[in-house]
């Protein structure tokens, strides 16, 4: 499946291309951020502190109108004054409308995005590749029937279908205990990692068709190869041939597509969270929706999580380019982006 030659190609492409290096760096960075979120985040991302709300990020200051009432000579006078709010080192990226630390929330947001992106893409690979390999291997009628069904799934724009399904099915969340908190390393941080279950299912459901298409194309061209005919003439069963001959030889384009799809799913998840459909409340998309209401007073609330999304998706897309250039298959691009 992964030959020494493939590894050599990957390494030399990585050495040659600065963009590939940037991509790997970004992806590793975001990955570490997601895994070690409780250690890296300076504050509990859900901790509210209304006294410190809407603090600007370091290097910026804002003005705010504050009214105070004073009791002078038996009369109440209301004094309105303009106060300059300075950034504090405690909150390097500022705080949101409820005084929650934007940096901590941005770090924690990586978890939701990566979990949904990776698990969603894996599910889509599992279903789509099996489906596509069967369709392509048997070809003919089976292929026609199966691929028509996949066409119907792809006939819906993925975001539209995802909105419809989640809006209608509700937002089941799976709570996984955070290992760092459970082990007592970072007490006081949120005890659970919230995985938006419906979102994972739905993103897989709207994206498996792309994998089915690619896997089918590969299986279709591999089924008439001599080694497959040889295996068949020796009495090997279809399931065995698909598993040991067809699948391993179609891994490369599937891997590249899967990488690009992780990026597409991260964008999809952020869009769903932005619309309030995902149920995740520690998510980049959700924070952008929150910050949108404070655009005129606190631009950073919506800006920071967006930058995080762009960096993550740029990184994954660059890794996808790197894999494609190094392994160089003729690859059909899936639907991507929001």
């Amino acid at each position, binding site marked *: 499946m992964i030959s020494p030659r493939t590894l050599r190609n990957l390494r030399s492409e990585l050495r040659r291309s600065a963009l590939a290096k940037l991509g790997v760096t970004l992806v590793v960075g975001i990955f570490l951020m997601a895994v070690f979120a409780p250690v890296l985040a300076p504050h509990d991302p859900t901790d509210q502190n209304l006294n410190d709300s809407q603090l600007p990020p370091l290097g910026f200051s804002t003005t705010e109108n504050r009214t105070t009432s004073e009791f002078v000579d038996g009369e109440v006078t209301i004094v309105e004054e303009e106060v300059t709010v300075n950034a504090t080192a405690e909150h390097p990226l500022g705080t949101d409308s409820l005084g929650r630390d934007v940096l901590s929330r941005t770090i924690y947001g990586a978890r939701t995005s990566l979990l949904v992106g990776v698990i969603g893409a894996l599910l889509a690979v599992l279903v789509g590749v099996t489906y596509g390999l069967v369709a392509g291997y048997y070809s003919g009628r089976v292929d026609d029937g199966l691929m028509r069904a996949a066409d*119907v799934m792809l*006939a819906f724009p993925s975001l539209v279908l995802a909105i419809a399904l989640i809006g209608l*099915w509700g937002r089941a969340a799976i709570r996984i205990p955070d290992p760092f908190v459970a082990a007592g390393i970072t007490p006081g941080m949120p005890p659970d990692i919230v995985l938006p279950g419906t979102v994972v299912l739905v993103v897989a459901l709207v994206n498996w068709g792309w994998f089915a298409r690619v896997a089918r194309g590969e299986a279709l061209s591999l089924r008439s190869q001599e080694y497959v005919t040889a295996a068949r003439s020796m009495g090997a069963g279809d399931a065995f041939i698909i598993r040991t001959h067809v699948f391993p030889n179609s891994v490369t384009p599937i891997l590249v597509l899967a990488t690009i799809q992780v990026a597409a799913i991260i*964008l999809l998840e952020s869009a769903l969270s932005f619309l309030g459909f995902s149920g995740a409340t520690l998510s980049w998309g959700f924070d952008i929706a929150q910050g949108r209401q404070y*655009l*005129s007073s606190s631009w950073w609330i919506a800006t920071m999580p967006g930058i995080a999304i*762009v960096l993550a998706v740029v990184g994954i897309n*660059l890794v996808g380019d790197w894999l494609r250039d190094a392994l160089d298959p003729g690859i059909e691009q899936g639907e991507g982006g929001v």
Partner: protein
Amino acid sequence: MSLGRFLIKRTVHGVFVVWGVVTVVFGLRFLTPGSPVNAVAPLDASQELRQRIARDLGLNKPLYEQYFDYLFSLLQGDMGYSYLRGIEASTLVLGRVPATVELAVAASFIAVVLSIPLGVIAANRRHEPADYGATLFSLVGISTPNFWLGIMLILVLSVQFGLFPTSGRPLGLYPALALLVTEGAPGGLLRWLHHIFLPAVTLGTYFTALITRLTRSGMLDELGKSYVRAARAKGLPEALVRYRHALRNTLVPIVTVVGLQLGTLIGGAVITEAVFSWPGLGSFLIRSINVRDWPLIQGSLVVIGVSFVLVNIVVDALYAYLDPQVVTE
């Protein structure tokens, strides 16, 4: 196979897909927890009233009968009546189509007009600053969530500088053009442009970036091929070689990818509409889902699915025109 037969075959295939789409949309209601009666009945409705509502909505009929009823009324353009507003669903749904089409067309226009020249320039000046700039733009452009881009544009251009309105569509293109014709003043058209500019840029950026990227890499591929060397060797002007030969061949894969990405355009329109309160099909669908107004949900999904299939057939025809080989395969 002739071009005509190819198109007929694609259309027949399209009809099957549309049928599938309608079936999925119909089935969606039965995969969803909660009875549609809940959307209509008051909270304290008696059992008797709930049953009467179910009968009125045709929910007490057997499933297959409901399905065929649905298919046949759809064929006659009847999408039922909105549960909450009692108006024909088709009127409400189709009334939202122009705004979405305007937005999608404006975004595609921006994308095509900017991206192909940008990609060609990048390919012509390989390893020069213009090339790096175009590459960086296309990389960031395909990686930016468009709702966030929209918010950032609002933040900078509307909130800070007050150049564009933050939301809404006071005037459609048709009324704007009608004003231009009847009054001869471009005011209506300018107002339309003023409002559609930010949403169109928001929706179009991803495609601009994508097509720039494809044009650049496609041009570089083609320019390295032997027919280009042959054309140069026989003394054809460089511009002719580049634009008549190389660019034309670059367009073929671009049309394919853009065809595959149409779903992204429609999905992107949904969320762009949500950001800019653009009164199109997308924001309509989101609102209908929130109140479980089934005839409106189904109607919007059918319209989106069917137009997607139609546009794909058009793309296939364009593809067949650009690359006659696909017809014979």
